[in-house]
């Protein structure tokens, strides 16, 4: 029996080549999209789950509301882990990650700057499941100056030999001893680095000061611990420890601080939530994360899941539509089979086998497509997606299951529809040919076009927002700015280097300041016009030199910027307009601003106000910013050079040559600032590209279905067209008549797609503090686009029918 079904199926596929081609192409493209997006989504999920105890590891973060400003900091105070371990039996272990500086590693007569070395407590490998290739995981990070290298770093300095116990000479400080080599971090780790140095290398890591948030603290809870309960109990610990120190600093009791509407607490974030939910669910300030952290947003996972599902749905709908449309051709066979003794059940089986067979062919083609397209898609989105056929046992069973499920989904309805046919009706000698209309088919086409239109609207909105970001006036002139990112290595020779560059006519201005734009802008509490109080204002602060304003071309609003003419300017501060607003200051110039600090607060005189400029990503509003005239910390120091637009290559060559005279150990690592800015929106850009690609594919699949359906409907109305022509209908009126139904469907689809797309895209835009609008023309454009594409699709079929000699179509009957 089965071979009989198979034979029929294959002969039918061959006989109706057009339908087969459309069906299988649509399904294959749809499935390929689904697989690629699934790989993308799977890659985003399951971060950090490689850790054996992933479900028991939590990161401690600090949540505070100060003066109405809410912040969550991913970093905690040095004594946090130790205190929690001591006070709470639920806490089994803890470890901290810290970062201090770049190191210059010596290898023979070469020196390399290593910026990816973090410090970790000796318990690090007890919490995270990162196997050591050499060395003892329990003791590797105990002694000061002990270094655990990743495989890659070890290879760089020691080649293939075992480096255990070897010394690495570090310029300007004690040598490190290699006490372990670890495997490189898995791709799915939120944190990764090149090497871990023992925390004990820096005595300050043993500090008992609670107000500097410098370390990420991870704790391992005992089995069965309820993290929410522990969180609640932790708050008293915070009060007991932070309280006295805050009191000494702010001059007020913590209770008073709370009474003023402020709050300050330590909370727990599950390890596995860090990659996708840090910002969305825990409002962690990205600025407080380590520079190498990999974070994304669960929203993109949802978004792409929806796209994957909808594209597959479009393809499945094509299948259902074409199958039911064709059912009249198959109905005769159903009738005959019933008269010779087939049960309805067997017929359903037969048609489902057919659809599963087709689906299997489509899946096979889809897999080939995926293999072809993945390298290209990977470069597009910067990932390493890979379809693992043989090194993952689940892949093949999942694909088979997928084939069955899609086959059932696509073939199920047509199968029952067909098998329910009453043979008596069909087998009568003269069967009237139907009009080819079906309510279900119309509804399904409307669904397809709803999805397509919504996807197009989404694509346009994302493009518009990305465009907006790229062209928004940031408050400074961003072109022709060059960032020398490793300027910190110049150290004391910075001024000399700057003078050398200033002599070149191609260089307009340059400034040495601390890092901006991406993460790592430090923040602090400041008091305006008083030395103690419950209402400190949270400012980010930058260490800059005299030429900052000139180089970035930022407008001054009030007072003046730092000047070489005033020797007192090291005690001065310049703030931005947002700072003025948050301090509720009316005439800030000349007033005092006090920076609250561990070793006593420092008071500065405000000498000027600059216009707000976007020194962080456009995801957030401009926050209060304070400028101090001082040398930035070495690792954060960036030399920004404004170059003339003429002779750019010569200028760059000059900078590099000068650099090489100053620094022999490493090259000048420079980037154009515009590129740095663009890097902040990579996620949006990728989303833009991915949605564009998949919207186009979605429309392609939907139109493929429309093409088939149009062919079918027109075939059904062939005779009618012939009669109308004889009666004198013009080709144009026939065209109108035939296009009418399709146009109606598409217009109806708009009614559904518009509000849905509007809602979702506005939600997405909420992610940006600065955003474009979902203008009305986007909707019109999307509709127009789909309408035109659809009309072109059916136009071909229609014209073919309209041009046919009426005699041919009537002769048929």
């Amino acid at each position: 029996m089965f071979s009989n079904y198979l034979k029929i199926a294959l002969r039918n596929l061959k006989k109706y080549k057009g339908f087969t081609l459309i069906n299988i192409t649509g399904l294959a493209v749809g499935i390929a999209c689904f697989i690629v997006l699934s790989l993308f989504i799977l890659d985003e999920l399951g971060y950090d789950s490689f850790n054996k105890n992933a479900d028991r590891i939590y990161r401690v973060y600090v949540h505070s509301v100060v003066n109405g400003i809410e912040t969550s900091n991913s970093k905690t105070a040095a004594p946090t882990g130790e205190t929690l371990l001591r006070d709470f039996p639920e806490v089994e272990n803890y470890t901290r990650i810290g970062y201090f500086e770049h190191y210059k590693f010596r290898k023979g007569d070469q020196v390399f700057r290593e910026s990816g070395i973090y410090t970790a407590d000796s318990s690090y490998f007890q919490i995270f499941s990162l196997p050591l290739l050499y060395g003892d995981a329990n003791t590797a990070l105990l002694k000061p100056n002990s270094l655990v290298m990743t495989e890659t770093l070890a290879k760089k300095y020691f080649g293939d030999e075992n480096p255990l116990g070897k010394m690495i000479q570090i310029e300007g400080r004690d040598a490190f001893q290699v006490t372990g080599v670890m495997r490189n971090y898995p791709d799915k780790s939120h944190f990764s680095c090149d090497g871990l140095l023992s925390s004990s290398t820096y005595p300050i890591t043993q500090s008992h000061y609670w107000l500097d948030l410098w370390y990420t603290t991870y704790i391992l809870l005992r089995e069965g611990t309820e993290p929410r309960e522990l969180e609640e109990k932790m708050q008293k610990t915070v009060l007991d420890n932070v309280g006295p120190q805050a009191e000494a600093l702010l001059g007020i009791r913590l209770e008073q601080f709370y009474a003023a509407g402020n709050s300050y607490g330590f909370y727990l974030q599950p390890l596995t939530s860090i990659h996708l939910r840090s910002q969305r669910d825990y409002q962690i300030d990205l600025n407080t994360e380590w520079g190498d952290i990999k974070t994304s947003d669960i929203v993109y996972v949802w978004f792409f899941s929806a796209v994957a599902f909808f594209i597959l749905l479009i393809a499945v709908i094509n299948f259902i539509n074409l199958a039911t449309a064709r059912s009249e051709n198959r109905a005769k066979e159903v009738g005959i089979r019933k008269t010779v003794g087939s049960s309805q059940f067997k017929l359903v089986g037969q048609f489902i086998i057919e659809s599963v067979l087709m689906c299997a062919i489509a899946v096979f083609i889809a897999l080939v497509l995926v293999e072809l397209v993945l390298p290209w898609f990977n470069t597009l989105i910067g990932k390493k997606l890979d379809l693992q056929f043989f090194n993952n046992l689940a892949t093949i069973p999942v694909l088979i299951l997928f084939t069955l499920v899609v086959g059932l989904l696509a073939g199920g309805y047509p199968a029952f529809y067909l098998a329910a046919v009453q043979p008596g009706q069909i087998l009568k000698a003269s069967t009237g040919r139907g009009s080819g209309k079906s309510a279900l088919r119309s509804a399904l086409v409307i669904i397809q076009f709803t999805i397509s239109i919504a996807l197009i609207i989404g694509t346009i909105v994302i493009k518009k927002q990305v465009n907006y970001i790229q062209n928004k006036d940031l408050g400074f002139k961003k072109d022709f700015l060059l960032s020398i990112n490793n300027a910190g290595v110049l150290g004391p020779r910075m001024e000399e280097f700057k003078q050398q560059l200033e002599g070149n006519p191609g260089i307009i201005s340059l400034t040495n300041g601390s890092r901006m734009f991406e993460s790592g802008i430090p923040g602090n509490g400041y008091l305006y016009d008083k030395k103690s109080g419950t209402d400190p204002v949270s400012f980010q602060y930058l260490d800059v030199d005299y030429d900052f304003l000139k180089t970035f071309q930022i407008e001054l609003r009030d007072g003046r910027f730092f000047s070489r003419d005033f020797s007192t300017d090291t005690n001065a501060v310049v703030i931005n307009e947002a700072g003025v607003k948050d301090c509720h200051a009316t005439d800030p110039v000349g007033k005092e601003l006090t920076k609250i600090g561990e070793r006593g607060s420092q008071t500065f005189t405000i000498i000027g106000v600059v216009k707000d400029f976007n020194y962080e990503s456009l995801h957030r509003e401009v926050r209060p910013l304070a400028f101090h005239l001082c040398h930035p910390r070495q690792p954060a120091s960036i030399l920004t050079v404004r170059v003339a637009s003429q002779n750019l290559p010569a200028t760059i060559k000059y900078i590099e040559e000068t650099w090489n005279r100053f620094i022999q150990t490493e090259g000048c690592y420079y980037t154009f600032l515009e590129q740095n800015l663009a890097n902040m929106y990579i996620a949006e850009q990728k989303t833009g590209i991915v949605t564009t690609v998949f919207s186009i594919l979605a429309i392609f699949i939907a139109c493929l279905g429309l093409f088939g359906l149009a062919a079918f409907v027109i075939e059904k109305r062939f005779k009618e067209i012939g009669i109308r022509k004889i009666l004198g209908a013009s080709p144009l009126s026939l065209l109108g008549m035939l296009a009418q139904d399709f146009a109606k469907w598409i217009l109806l689809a708009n009614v559904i797609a518009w509000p849905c797309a509007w809602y979702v895209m506005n939600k997405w835009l909420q992610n940006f503090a600065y955003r474009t609008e979902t203008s009305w023309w986007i909707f019109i454009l999307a509709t127009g686009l789909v309408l035109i594409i659809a009309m072109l699709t059916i136009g071909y079929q229609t014209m073919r029918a309209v041009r046919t000699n009426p005699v041919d179509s009537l002769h048929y009957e």
Partner: protein
Amino acid sequence: MIKLVDVEKYYANKFIKTWVLRNINLTIHEGDFVSIMGPSGAGKSTLLHIIGMLDDMSGGEYYFMDEPVHKLNEKKRTAFHQQYIGFVFQAYHLIDELTVYENLETPLLYKKVKTAERKSMIADMLDRFNIVAKKDLFPNQLSGGQQQLVAVARALIINPKIILADEPTGNLNSKQGLEIMEMLKQLNKEGTTIIQVTHDENKAAFGNRIIHLADGYVEKEEQHG
């Protein structure tokens, strides 16, 4: 063998009932050769389809070999199709995608006949109808008469108790038509019950009973031989 009591059939279209068959009372015995006659639209084909359980009736009772068909489920009807009833249609109704051989094989597959037995049954049938040479051809490669021959062969292959033929010669030329009628006559002599629908007096005369239908009613019945 077949007993129809007050069988009626109508199509309900919104508020209007369109009657196709009314008040049909009919008994057909084993070995009968019944011809159903009547003008276009009299309900001949519908009656045949109801007898063949291809169509539902709107009211009345129908006993097939003493089983109440009007109360039977789909499964049981399927079983009747597999064992007792063979169909021949005016438009032959062979499965276009299957060869002659495969068309003959299909009812046996549904009846779950073993492979070896199936092969010999098909071979016998091909022999008997003299179409061995055509066994690998598709229906559209055959003439009308040849297709109808295959259709009759397919109806007979399950060795049915009754053959229902809906204008079996309607699409054939007179020579071919006559051959098919002779064949049915021969089958009837061998004991198969036959019901045919026709509007050709000559063809109707092959039967021993002629039932005349008009506007859904049995108008009259003639008995022959």
